């Protein structure tokens, strides 16, 4: 505080710093909420089954967390631009089928198909922007296209993951289980790209106030294409990671990922509109969902028939807590 400030301005400064403090606390609380919910789920698991909290336990429980985290990141890019992708689940399934067939048998063609599918995502972004179409409709339609293509590629469950992928996903680092390291890496890389780089600001701004961005001379077509292409890229990574874990594929393998990914983004502190997303939060949200999805419920002796419903209940509780906290913020 500068000495020449008058009493009056000191007063305003004090008031604003108090205001700012309250806002910062609320934001911190909201930012910590994903981590808190993860900690809560972990505590519950530790209490129900202490042996699960081990290197081997985590490797097993978080087995499927990597593909879920990658799909969640893919969805997050789309949500950052105020859109929603209802096709990410079947897209992951399609990528899985291609990975277990073409990518193993004819790696060049397989890679070309996967790159081409990222291109399709980019085109979808362009289409949605140019024709001003609702993304929900376009991606819902695309979900059937991906599903159909997946069945064409792999009519019945089977195929085999490429060996290098199996080797990568079976990697066992010392001390810290692989899924945790992978989740950290994914979260940090995307955080840097979207939250710290100068073009990441433009991407998030396109969700916050598109008109302002356009007035400042940025191309909204380009931001939408980039966001959708990134979603496609992370969808491809998710599908490949999934097949690296399951070793073989099925056309329906990713169907549940669409809603899991949306829930993960929201759980991680993202909002459907306004460009407010958090990559690290999204990864934590995905981990929470992966843990809450089956390990926790199995330890709670909830019969498999009821697990889906119980999973939904957990989601409602966490999201309700989020709403309460953000209401306090106002």
């Amino acid at each position, binding site marked *: 505080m500068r000495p020449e*400030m008058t009493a009056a*301005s000191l007063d*305003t*400064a004090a008031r*604003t*710093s108090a205001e*700012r403090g309250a*806002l910062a606390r609320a*934001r911190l609380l909201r930012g910590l909420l994903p981590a808190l919910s993860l900690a809560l789920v972990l505590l519950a698991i530790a209490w129900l089954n202490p042996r699960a909290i081990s290197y081997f336990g985590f490797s097993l429980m978080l087995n499927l967390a990597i593909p879920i985290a990658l799909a969640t990141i893919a969805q997050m890019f789309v949500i950052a631009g105020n859109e929603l992708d209802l096709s990410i689940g079947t897209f992951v399934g399609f990528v899985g089928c291609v990975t277990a067939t073409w990518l193993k048998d004819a790696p060049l063609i397989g890679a070309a198909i996967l790159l081409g599918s990222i291109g399709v995502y980019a085109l979808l972004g362009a289409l949605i922007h140019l024709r001003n179409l609702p993304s929900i409709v376009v991606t819902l339609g695309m979900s059937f296209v991906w599903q159909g293509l997946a069945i064409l590629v792999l009519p019945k469950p089977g195929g085999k993951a490429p060996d290098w992928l199996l080797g990568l996903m079976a990697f066992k680092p010392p001390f810290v289980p692989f899924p945790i390291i992978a989740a950290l890496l994914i979260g940090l890389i995307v955080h840097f790209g979207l939250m*710290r780089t*100068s*073009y990441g*600001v*433009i991407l*998030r*701004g396109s*969700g*916050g*106030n598109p*008109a*302002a*961005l*356009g*007035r*400042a*001379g*940025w191309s909204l077509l380009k931001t939408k294409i980039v966001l959708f292409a990134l979603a496609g890229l992370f969808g491809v990574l998710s599908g490949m990671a999934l097949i690296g874990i399951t070793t073989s594929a099925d056309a329906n393998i990713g169907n549940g990922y669409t809603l899991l990914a949306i829930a993960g983004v929201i759980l991680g502190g993202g909002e459907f509109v*306004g*460009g*407010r997303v958090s990559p690290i939060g999204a990864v934590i949200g995905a981990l929470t969902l992966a843990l809450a999805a089956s390990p926790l419920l199995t330890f709670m002796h909830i019969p498999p028939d009821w697990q889906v419903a119980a999973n939904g209940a957990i989601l409602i509780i966490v999201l309700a807590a989020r709403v309460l906290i953000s209401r306090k913020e106002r």
Partner: protein
Amino acid sequence: MPEGNADIIRLNGAEKHFGAVRALGGVDFHVSPGECVGLVGHNGAGKSTLMHMVAGTLVPDSGQIGVHGDTEDNYSVSRAQQLGIRCVFQELSLCPNLSVAENTRINHASLRGFGWRRKAAELIAAKLDEIFPGHSISAADIVGDLSIGRRQMVEVARAFTATQDRLDLVILDEPTSSLDAHTAGQLLAFVRRFVAGGKSCILISHVLGEVLRNADRIVVMRDGKVVVADAASAFDRDRLVTAMGGAEARQKIAAQIAAAKPAASPLRVRARPAAQKDGTDLVACAGEIIGLAGLAGHGQTDLLLAIFAAASRARTGIEVTAPVALVAGDRQSDGIFPQWSIAENIGIRSLARLRSGLLISPQREAELAAFWQKKIGIRTPDMNNNIFSLSGGNQQKALFARALGSDAQIVLMDDPMRGVDIGTKLEVYDLVREEAARGRTFLWYTTETEELDNCDHIYVFKNGRIVANLRRDELTEEKIIQSSFGDAA
């Protein structure tokens, strides 16, 4: 500067139409280096359209734009940026989800690479310090957390930051509307320093005193044209007001109204705007047409909506003694049921009367529609056609029929004649006066001053408050402008 004393920007014969509406009709406008041009005019005079052209966000239908002496054929926002022209738009153009520094980055393509965050933060913080000393805004603050006044400060400061592109002209569209007197003073003082340094500003403000004190030259617009442009010293407040309002004589319909006025009629509405500090009420009696005037968005619509709500649930400060109907201003979003026929659109306000048993009687609905078709002159072969088969003016008539065909004794009109042709307007004016003579009460918010000629009593609004209360015989356009542009907030 290689261009010497060339104008920073010059528009010749700029024209712009939005559909059938002419927003600009052949405007010549220029700004020289080192001057502050004040731009004034009533709502819809074309100021914002003109400024959008200067900033490159709108392309004129015809006319030429020259910048620094060269003609620009493909003028755009990014071209304007390169040429050193910036605009602070009236509606805020910050991204609420980003920090102050990140919002600065959006306007500067060159802020990139390693260390851009620090550079952006330093740039905006230095400019905020320069314009608004003691501002207490941090570059790391998320814009969505700032008050509206602070957001405007950030927006203004951002427009004055410069990196690699030149900066010659900043357009300030109502820059002080959300600032308190102290910060507004800081900004205007900065504008004077900026202009003294050889740069230029365009200042648009509804506070005429601000313009008179700070501009070197004042351009007055009315109806999409420049009516006067002169040195600021040649203007005083009265001359400005006269220029804005226009002095041409208008045919008055006053006699007609005065004749039909019943003496002491029962009270229908007594309402006080939420922001009203003194005890002024809006009072409307049976058979009266009450005008709500003032600049757009100064609380007129809010009061109408409050009265409408008070009719069904009691509210403090508002007394309503009869059923109410509202004719919406934005008929596409608030008035019309797009999937329905004309007859159904008219009948929706009167369903109770159209019922037979549990169902709506198609016959009664058709009767009501036919009656109003004749009475108000809705031009259609069949009232069962979709409402969109009508022209805009006839759609608006259908909405009037909805209100007038109901049991409502109080009709609220939220600037309903926007974008309606003059023929339809005159028909509706007649109908309104006729219905008022039968005892109906009309509360009529309008942005078109001529329409106030139909009113018995006019309340002028400013900042959500009633600032003037004029009888029909006291009404002049100058008076309305004087009150709505009054410096006292």
